[in-house]
């Protein structure tokens, strides 16, 4: 036999294993231990009483709801290049471009919408953006609405979100 082959011994043939009862005893010991440990101190059970308790372990790398960033002067950073919409595998980004007349840049989106019901939160739009204009660092994990239309986030709403991890400045080059 090849010396790289490791033979794993077959288990289950011993009398103790065939009896099955010792294994049941071991298993019941485990369940009883958990049961009595938890029943003697229920508040110590490590679960989240959502929504009264909110998760505190959302990290900077976690992809939450999208937002559109601002330039240092407070205007929209997006130049409507369509890179994110092209990269999007779920095809959930809808952009209509328009000319920008305030002299800051040449182009900006007239409409920028993300259909969060279609979005798969892959983060490709963030990777694709050459202007760091779209990010997923809001830390928002729960979006609720009564109609389907409520889940299509428009430009104004996307601009209104703020980064949850104080990245507003660091990546803007300051």
């Amino acid at each position, binding site marked *: 036999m090849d010396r790289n082959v490791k033979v794993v011994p077959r288990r289950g043939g011993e009398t103790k294993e065939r009896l099955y009862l010792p294994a049941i005893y071991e*298993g019941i010991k485990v369940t009883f231990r958990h*049961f009595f440990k938890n029943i003697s101190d*229920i508040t110590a059970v490590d*679960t989240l*009483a959502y929504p*009264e308790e909110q998760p505190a372990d959302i990290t900077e790398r976690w992809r939450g709801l999208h937002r559109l960033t601002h330039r240092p002067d407070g205007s929209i950073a997006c130049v409507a290049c369509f890179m994110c919409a092209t990269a999007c595998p779920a095809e959930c980004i809808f952009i209509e471009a328009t000319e920008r007349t305030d002299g800051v840049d040449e182009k900006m989106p007239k409409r920028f919408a993300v259909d969060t019901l279609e979005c798969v939160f892959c983060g490709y739009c963030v990777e694709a953006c050459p202007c760091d204009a779209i990010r997923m660092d809001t830390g928002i994990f729960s979006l609720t609405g009564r109609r389907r239309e409520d889940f299509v986030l428009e430009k104004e709403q996307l601009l209104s979100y703020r980064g949850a991890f104080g990245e507003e400045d660091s990546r803007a080059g300051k």
Partner: protein
Amino acid sequence: MSTAAVVVAVGSFALGALLALLMIPVLVWLERRGAGLVQDRMGPDRANISGFRLGGLVQSFADVIKLVYKEEYYPAHIKTGRRLMMLSPVITFTAALLAFMVIPFADTLVIGGEALRVQPLPVEYGVLWYLAVGAVGVVGIFFGGWLSHDKYSLLGSVRAGSMMLGYELPLGLAAVAMILTYNTIDFNEMVRWQSGTLFGFLPAWGVFVQPLAALLLVITLFAETNRAPFNVAEGESEIVAGPYTEFSAMKFAMYFMGEYVAMNTASAVIITMLFGGYQLPWVSTRSMLEHFDAFAWATMALLPLATYGAIRWMRKNNRVRPTVSTDGGRGFETKVLTAALIAMTAVVEGALLWVSLLPEGATAAATAVALLQIAVFVAKLMAFNLFFILVRWTLPRFRYDQVQHLGWYYLLPLALLNLFVTALVVAGGA
């Protein structure tokens, strides 16, 4: 028939119905919370009536309301036998309920020279009744599965039927061994037999007298009640929900409740046949009556301690972590329940004090002993139900052929051997 006889008959029937029916929501709650605690999570703890959640018990009643208001749906493909199909959950439920009715909750009360059985159905052939009526439950499952005209249901009901064949035999043979040992088919006589002492230190419980038969009984009763690790009939990972697939709303709820009643019945049978029934270990009813004062004083001493423990546990656990903004009325509930517990303890203490001051051999003492035995019975019943539940969350399900293999190749020969040895010992000793 004297007044006492009527009171005892009605009282024990009401107690039997309560213990069987009111136990269903409690068991469902125990199952869900127990599963949660075993798996390091909370289980249902949200449903409440103005802050009162009784540890989540209210959830069961909310579930009942949901099931009652659910749409009655009849699968359109079922053309024939719809009446019988609707009746089949009722058969299962009724069989489980009736089988429970022969369990004695306390020793025969002697009031004014009249012997009164504390048993919902005062019969002397309890074991036969249980074996006969308990086995009818599978008929309901079989009809339901067959008349659903659905291959999953048919497979499930075939499984249920063959499980019954495979496990009823060792169950019956183990029961026969117990019958030979106790020399009676009366559950109450069985409990009386078990009230002595074995080898000077063990309570003379069936489980110590007949360990192998006890093991066989427990295993086969797990199979009989269709519970994990033997729930192959329902087998949700293979055959959807087995015989219950086409049932919805209250029709399904009947099956579901029947299952819990059957589990409760199995627990009651196990403790009656193997764990001394309503009896405290080492103690017989006569010694309890003779030394009633001692038992009354011991109860009076222990009860406040138990209440104190319960209150302490509640104050520690019926609250939320400091990180949670609101306690949802738990603080108020704890206060009210603390007061209720103290009041109940006071009432029981007062009653015991009053009875112990009465003259010797009074009817009140006999009644108090019977009530004490009922309390012991309920405590044991709950403990065994908890065992059933914890076993469900411990063991994975057997494969169907493994179940049959275990039943026919191991349990049946073991039961026969055990019966043979028992018969030899009994015949040799007699």
